[in-house]
């Protein structure tokens, strides 16, 4: 490779892992948050189901 061209692009390849890392890092953080939100949503829906069952049991108990 032409030494001048090599000098022109001398910082391009070494920077690539950092640039890719930055882009992946940003998306990774956002994805982790989405995962946390989905787990929290599942936990909440489980809680709602438990509450619904507790309410049903209570109504049955009151009916007797």
């Amino acid at each position, binding site marked *: 490779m032409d030494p*001048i061209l090599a000098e*022109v692009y001398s910082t391009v390849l070494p920077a690539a892992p*950092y640039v890719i890392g930055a882009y992946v890092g940003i998306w990774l953080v956002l994805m982790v948050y*989405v995962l946390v939100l989905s787990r929290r949503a599942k936990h909440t829906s489980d809680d709602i189901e438990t*509450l619904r069952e507790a309410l049903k049991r209570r109504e049955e108990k009151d009916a007797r």
Partner: protein
Amino acid sequence: MNSPSTHTGARGTLERLLPVALIVGAVLVAVDVVWTFTLAPLVQGAQLSEPTVIGGMQVTTKLLLSQKIFYLHVPVAVASFAVMAFAAFFAVRFLMTKDRAYDVRSKTAMEVVLVFIVATMISGDLWTYFEWGVWWVWEPRLTTYFILMLLVIGYFILRNAIDDPERRARFCAVFGIVAFIDAPISFMITRLVPSSIHPVVFRTDSGLPPMMLIPFLLGLFGMLLVAFALYRIAHRINADALEVEELKRALEEQDAQASRAAADEALGRLRATGAHMMAGDADAAPADDDSATPRHDATATDVSQAKED
């Protein structure tokens, strides 16, 4: 201004727009990324030992790839400032109205702020390490942004440290507003402190060529839409979780009240039985003193029997 609970129509519209905002935001950011690595030119770095011609153009400097981090790093950072402004706004609204719905909104916005701050920190640090050779520099922008991150983390520590919901909401609202003061300082610090070595992006004389400005703006609007969509999704989940917690607490209180009522009723019955027996005992006592002891024994046995009942 009305309470958030009365904004059913507006909320319904926002809910309907949510998937659209998320998709449009993701698409804009994707276009930004593709544009960044295909059409946006590499910026110029250090001077070459001698000029050369590439593609018919004279090149006198090295070309930098690391600058491409800027196309996503800056939009994420701006989104963190924007969402933080909303968090502070909701905190002010909470202090004005005492409506807990605003507290949930403020807390949710703070969550999103923390996520965007962490993303900004990661991407910024990778650039810092490559360009400056160190992972961290106590430079004004980095320092004020780091303080902002600590304040947001402190907000959640404070939230978890207070049990009483009313006090927690009030203290956190005040803390959130105070923490927000650092956001404009961090945003403006590169202009306020001339010795700052952090690159300045938002300038009236920045003169970004369209091939660089367009992807940057696409990324900025895309990331703001993604932040908005994440906030709305998180708010819906947090509001549901809060409602579930309140329902649980109400049910537990109801159970406790029922148990207390049953215990009071049993105690009343017991007292009535005891009083009845004591009255019978008192009537019989003057007639025969010797028979008092066995009668007391009988009363004690009856009371313990009643207790068992």
